[in-house]
């Protein structure tokens, strides 16, 4: 399952909510304001690191650039819209809107 998360973890619980439903082999894609979770040194690093220990985490590069998020928590993989499509080829999708 591909889980898409598009909300900031600082004002929404979406990423934490999603984390409760992850299974082995699942993938999380952070996009839009969801990429704010990638930043190092924040309040929610432990949440993100916990997710990284269980599943692969991707973030959309275009959204990272728009928000000037350049120092990413190690292990997060930056991708583009083509990479997003590739993830959709491999997985069914649940959008955590």
């Amino acid at each position, binding site marked *: 399952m591909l889980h898409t998360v598009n909300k900031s973890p600082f004002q929404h619980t979406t990423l934490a909510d999603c984390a409760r439903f992850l299974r082995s082999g699942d993938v999380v894609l952070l996009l839009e304001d969801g990429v704010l979770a990638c930043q190092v040194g924040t309040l929610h690093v432990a949440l993100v690191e916990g997710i990284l220990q269980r599943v692969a985490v991707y973030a959309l590069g275009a959204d990272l650039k728009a928000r000037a998020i350049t120092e990413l928590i190690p292990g997060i993989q930056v991708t583009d819209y083509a990479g997003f499509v590739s993830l959709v080829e491999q997985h069914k*999708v649940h959008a955590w809107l």
Partner: protein
Amino acid sequence: MKIAVCIGEGPYNHEAADSAYHFIRAALDRGHQIQGIFFYHDGVHNVNALMEPPQDERHMANRWSALGATGIHIVACVTAAKRRGAMEQVAHVELAGLGQLAMMTIQADRLVCFGD
């Protein structure tokens, strides 16, 4: 692969419609078929023919219309659109019921939802 896309937020106010557009373009570039694009909730405002964004900004409705012109089936939910007054669609966009969302979802290999 056949991919359906559901978009639940209006243009400009939220990034969701931009993300959906970029995703669809990338899917087409990778040779996939877009089974259909369905606009629901405030998403129906995306294909409003009356929008006039500033000249130096992207024109969301024209983007969707251009995709529709290539033969992609684009539908705005008629019930949602009536409620919100989004009753004048750009060319190549159909106003129809939720049955279209059901059909797209059932017939596509994948459904991807975008929204707020």
